[in-house]
Every structure is written in C-alpha cells, then in structure tokens.
C-alpha cells in the first residue's frame, strides 16, 4: 500500500448541519487488525464521523452474538463488527468461527425484522486505516438516511 492510499482523505458524506440528528453506531473491533486499522486512521489524521463507539475485543471470534443483540436492544442505530481477513487471524481460526456466527446473527436479525442495513460486518486489516475511515463514513451515511432506529420493542 502506498503512502498516498494510507493518508488519502476518505470521501465523507456532507457534514451534518449543527443540531441535525446524528446516528450512534456501535463498533466491535478485533484488537489485532481492525482496531489497529482504526488506530492507523487516527495516527494518519484521517477524518471519519464521530458516530462510532468502539469496543475493542481480542478477536472477532470473541464477538458473542449477544453483543450485537444488546447493541440493538440498547437503542444503537447501527452495529458494526470488524475482524481480520480470513486467513489472517492472530489466533489462526477465530475469525472462521466468527464468520459462521455473524452469518447467523444476520439471519436472526432478518427473522426478527431488524433491517439488515443496520448491521455491517467487514474484514479490515491493520494496514487499512483508510478503508476503516471510509467504511465508517459510508455506514454512517447509510444510517443517517435510514433515520433513527425505532427500538426493538416499539409498537
């Protein structure tokens, strides 16, 4: 990856006007890849929306499906889970287990009628700071268009 791609400003959707509703996004990031990617985005001074609240986990294999469910129950407008690319897991196979679990979480959310656009799963490596910033910006933009999440129990 060239220096330029590392530090290139990601395209961010138009900055919200003051007072406009801002989504709140839960981000669950693997320590070894995605969190390091987020760190790189920070060190490279890349701008990304401040909508994301990051929770660092040791591995995407540590992501209990309940983390995602709890996020929605607590009223987050979107939940993002990021892990190492398949084959790159620090613990060799944690993200392979995660892949099945996350696929089923998506199915469960669909069954329960939580719009699938509100959940985002992606592989982000430690060198992809730019991509991380881009993903957060895109996801924020998407959630902003969807509007606030009514909540799991809303009538």
């Amino acid at each position: 990856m060239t220096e330029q791609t590392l530090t290139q400003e990601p395209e961010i959707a138009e900055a919200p006007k003051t007072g406009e509703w801002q989504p709140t996004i839960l981000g669950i990031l693997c320590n070894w890849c995605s969190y390091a990617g987020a760190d790189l985005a920070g060190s490279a001074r890349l701008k990304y929306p401040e909508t994301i609240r990051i929770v660092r986990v040791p591995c995407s294999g540590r992501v209990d499906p309940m983390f995602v469910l709890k996020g929605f129950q607590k009223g987050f407008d979107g939940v993002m889970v990021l892990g190492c690319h398949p084959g790159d897991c620090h613990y060799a196979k944690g993200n392979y287990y995660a892949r099945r679990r996350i696929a089923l979480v998506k199915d469960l959310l669909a069954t329960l009628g939580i719009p699938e656009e509100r959940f985002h799963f992606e592989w982000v490596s430690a060198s992809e700071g730019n991509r991380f910033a881009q993903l957060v910006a895109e996801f924020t933009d998407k959630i902003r268009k969807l509007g606030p999440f009514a909540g799991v129990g809303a009538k």
Partner: protein
Amino acid sequence: MLNMSDTQNAIREEAKKALESRGVTLVIGWGAGSVPFKTTPVFINKSEDVDKLVWNPACVNNLAVYLPKLAKNSRVGIVAKPCDIRSIVTLIQEKQVKRDNLFIIGLGCRGVVDAQNLEDQDFHLQDVLAIDWVEARLKVTTTSGEHLLECSDCLREMCLVCTKRTPAIYDVSLGEAVEPVEVKGCALPELPEERRKYWSEQFAKCIRCYACRQVCPNCYCEQCFADRIEPKWTAKKATTEESWMFHATRAMHLAGRCIGCGECSRVCPVDIPVAELMSEMSRLVEKKYGYQAGDPDEELPVLGQYKQDDVDPAQHGG
C-alpha cells in the same frame, strides 16, 4: 404393523426387560394424565410398575429434557418419539449425556395432538374418553360417540411440518414407520418493519416465566444468561425490550441446535410462537450450511465448526 395398543404393550414389555436384565435403573416414559387427552411424564424404577406406561396421540412431552441430569451416572431407559430422539442426538453430540448410559425405546410417530385444537372444534375436553390414530386420521372417543378428525385439524403445528417420523437412533424400535409430509415455508410477515412489529407484539406478552427454557432439552446450561446478574444481559422485568433480548438470545443459542419439537410454544402460557422463531432459524441454518440439528451423522454442532469456503457475511467480500 403395530397398532396403538400393541405398541403400548410392546413398550411395557421392553421397559420391563430393560429394568430386569439390561442394567437400566430407570425408565422415563409417558403415563396416563388426570384426563384422557393428557399424559404426564412417569419415572419407573420397578419392573412391576411398567404398566403405568402409555402411548397415544397425547404423548406430547419431549422427555429428553430429563436426560442431562438423570442419565449422568447411571443407565436410563427412555421412551422417545423421533423428535425426542433428535434431541437426544444433540445431547450426545454436545457431550451432555453418554450414549452408553441410554437405552432408547424409539417409536414411529404420526404426530401428537394439540388439546387446544380439539377445544377449538367444540370438543368439551372433559367428555373426551380416548384418542387414537386411525390410518391418517385421528379418532376421538367422547361420551357422545366416536369422531374421526383430519390430522391437519387437530395435530400440533410442528407435527404437521415434521419430515422425520422414524427414530434416528435407538436400541429398540417400535411402532410403524410413517411417510414424511411436505415442509411448509416461512409464515412470518415479509417486510422487516412488519416483522419487527409482529415480534414486538408477541414479546410484549411475555411474562418471563422461562417455561420455554425449562422445557427445552437443549437449554441445559447450569446457569442461564437470563439468570445472571453480572453481566446483566437482560433485566428480569417483563418489558418488551428485555423480553426481546431474552428471546433473541435464546434463538441465537439454539440456532443450529433446535430440532423443532415445538415444546416451547406448547408450554407458553401467553401463546408466544417461540417455536416459529426457532424453526425459521433452523431453516436458514440448513440453507446456509446444509446442516440439520439432530442428525446422527454430524459430529459437531454447526457453530462449533467451520469450512474454508463458508458463506461470507461481509458486505464487500473478504
């Protein structure tokens, strides 16, 4: 082909042999309930008591729920329908019970009855004297005579879509093999917002009695997440949000493990279609991974394994 009372006698015979000469200390089966359209679990440890065992379309309970505790240290006999046996398979697979500790008296099954359906058809349950399968129909004997009902009108919902009607594993197999029926698709509303509202209405009814959990053979955790104070995954108060969290998590915990006996829906005092959520998850698991819970050929649970070429849930690809 054995008819119902022959099967019942054969069950008693096998239970007796099991207790007397096969090293079985206890036989779990169904016994007559307080009324003819109900049965109750019975636990038999003396061979002279085997006549308490019955077999009829009211034998609804999935008795596998007792195995993790009762078959821990001794050999236990169990009378089981094909769905109960699939529960047993998952328990063996998940190392909750040893196959050697079980003596399975497997039965072919034509579906069991939902008492509510009888009531809906204007039967006064107190007048029912007996129920029996006759060919593909159900015979209800009441004080006013015999009535033949179509299975679709009186069986439990899960039985109507059941495709596995012969025991998967057994030590003795009794009763007739029955042709599987056609599978129904998903009955949930299509639009996400409608689905969310549907479940929100259902979970709003939940009183958090945990009957669905208690009756489920796969809910064997010694400490359930719902009972934990720290971390508090779900508060005990029965609000829609907290109940949503309980049911959503339970659905996730049972994804790829639920065999679809439908006990959760049956015991629910406020009629939440819990099994509907579970069976939709099972359908999706099968679609993605070609995995069916309770299949004796599977060695590991679906989430306890992975393949290099599994479906990738990442939006932009790996």
